[in-house]
């Protein structure tokens, strides 16, 4: 903890859309999250970086309701959602592109998108599909193709597009760069920036810390279930520990 610690809490509290307070999550007996405090403000991109097993995905799953904290609270727009089921969290306005994309590989691209709009009416979906196509023209070209035949980059686009179909106010992205060629990573991050520029609040989990910090406003560094460092993306990029541990500099 040094120069890059959080700014004055009072400012944060005002606009926090998503707030985790002292969250402890377990997988059975394994204590995966050890008192996570985290806030995401409206309109921000916040990134969680950290090594394998640091608890990044667990944090996202705790927010999205796929896991529930044993102690501590998750608040979304002032409402405690710590123990709200995953399908309800989607309805409340939190969309998720899960780890490993998990698209429905035997459904077509359109069918995948419509599945993402499961909580919405047919009319809303029809409109939203067009928004998603505008964002990812590639998906329009592939509309009738099976999800499993898409390239990795296209699958990632589909996963993000599918999450957007539920018309979330906060988007959770879990390792969107995973397994993608560098050029595609660049492209995906540009689109994430664009989605944000249109007003979407985004919580981004990434191992690719350099890329993540380049588009994020703020970041949290996780280590073995703790937040060890937090601050503006700029400060984190300059932070010596981050540079050594996550940006591959010696």
């Amino acid at each position, binding site marked *: 903890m040094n120069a890059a610690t959080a700014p004055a809490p009072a400012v944060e509290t005002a606009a926090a859309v998503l707030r985790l307070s002292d969250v402890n999550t377990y997988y059975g007996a394994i204590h995966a999250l050890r008192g996570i405090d985290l806030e995401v403000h409206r309109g921000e991109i916040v990134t969680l970086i950290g090594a*394998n097993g640091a608890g990044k*995905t667990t944090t996202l799953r705790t927010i*999205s309701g*796929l896991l529930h904290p044993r102690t501590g609270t998750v608040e979304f727009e002032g409402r405690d959602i710590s123990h709200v*089921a*995953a*399908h*309800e969290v*989607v*309805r409340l306005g939190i969309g*998720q592109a*899960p*780890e*490993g*994309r*998990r*698209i*429905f*590989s*035997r*459904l*077509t691209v*359109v*069918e995948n998108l*419509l*599945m*993402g709009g*499961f*909580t919405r009416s*047919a*009319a809303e979906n*029809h409109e939203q*599909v*067009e928004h998603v*196509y505008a964002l990812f023209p590639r998906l*329009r070209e592939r*509309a*009738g193709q*099976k*999800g*499993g*035949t*898409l*390239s*990795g*980059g296209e*699958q990632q686009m589909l996963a993000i597009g*599918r*999450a957007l179909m*539920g018309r979330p106010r906060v988007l959770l992205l879990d*390792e969107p760069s*995973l*397994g*993608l*060629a560098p050029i*595609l990573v660049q492209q995906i991050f540009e689109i994430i920036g664009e989605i944000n520029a249109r007003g979407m609040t985004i919580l981004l989990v990434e*191992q690719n810390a350099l890329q993540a910090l380049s588009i994020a406003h703020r970041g949290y560094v996780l280590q073995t279930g703790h937040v060890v460092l937090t601050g503006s993306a700029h400060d984190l990029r300059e932070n010596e520990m981050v540079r050594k541990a996550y940006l591959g500099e010696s």
Partner: protein
Amino acid sequence: MSVVQDLPTPGGARGMRTRASAFGGRHRSLSITLGMALVAAVLPVLAGVPPFSSFQPQAAWIDGFTNAGVFVLLALGLNIVVGVAGLLDLGYAAFFAIGSYAYAYAASPFGNQILGINVQAALGDAAGLVFWPMLAIGALVAALFGVLLGAPTLRLRGDYLAIVTLGFGEIVPIVFLNSDAVTNGTNGIGGIYRPYLPGFGAYSATNPWPYYITTVAVVTLVLILCYRLVESRIGRAWEAIREDELAAAANGINTVTTKLLAFALGASTAGIAGVLNTAKLTVVSPDQFTFVISFTVLAMVVLGGMGNFWGVAVGAFVIYTINNVVLKSLNQFFQSVGVPILKDIDFLQLQFLLYGLALVAMMLLRPEGLFPNSRRTRELHADVVPVEEDAEGEAAAGGAAGGAGEGGR
């Protein structure tokens, strides 16, 4: 599902789509009804001409077709659970038993006495009228038990669910067997009223036609409902769950209630089949509901083509007919002709060996079943490489979809 593929044309697509699916829905119900009517009309004709008429008299064929219809119902119900929602249920006969006993209680002197009612006193000779509401009540009772079993167990996955349902399938007949006071134990409940419908021919052991027509009508109705369901929102949710349960939840699908619904609807279909079967046999006993029933119905679903209702219906029909007519006829044929060796084989005893061989052959040669669901075919003949599930860790996928294996089960 196929109707949405024309979505990419922007504008106007929606109107087209809704119109197409509305038409598709009505059209489908009509074509199912016509198809079933055609089948129902052709089967008796076939049964009356050689070579089929040489196997057994036409009345025996009609009776056999009716019994086959009961199995078609069972297969349609199990197809919702196993084929569509992807939940392996090995104890399906339990719901068949529950539906059967439900009718026995409502429509026999012994059962009425247990329930403290008297249908015969109230309706007299028309006691069989109780059959009609019992079709619905039997379905409800079975669905209730489906929910009771499903609620605690559907959190289990794959193998574990299979084992629990296997246990349930064994427990239910044993309970009926050992609760002598209320079920008459091993002797079962007899004297069950045959259905009655004013203005319709008498249901009797010697006249198979009324049962045949009733069964065809019920199968038609269930078939229409199955198609309606699968093409609805619920059907999409089932499909998502079969593909990838976690992703389904992340898309806002309540996986617990959706799976429970599949279980309950599957169970209710078995309940209807039970009511129908018991009304025909007029007796119910625990030994009718062995694991063999569960297994046979599962084989029908797998051989017919998981997920495809017509395929499953045909599969069930064919297997039942082979079991109960063809094998018997083979015995008679080889004996009467006097073929050495073959005439000494009892083909009825080989039934399960033949099943086993057929299943093994199917899994090797045509795993999607005789009449596959198009999506299942994609799953099993994967030139489509499914997306690798476990992705935390090595970024090994290298751009393309990595890994193989049965995606989201």
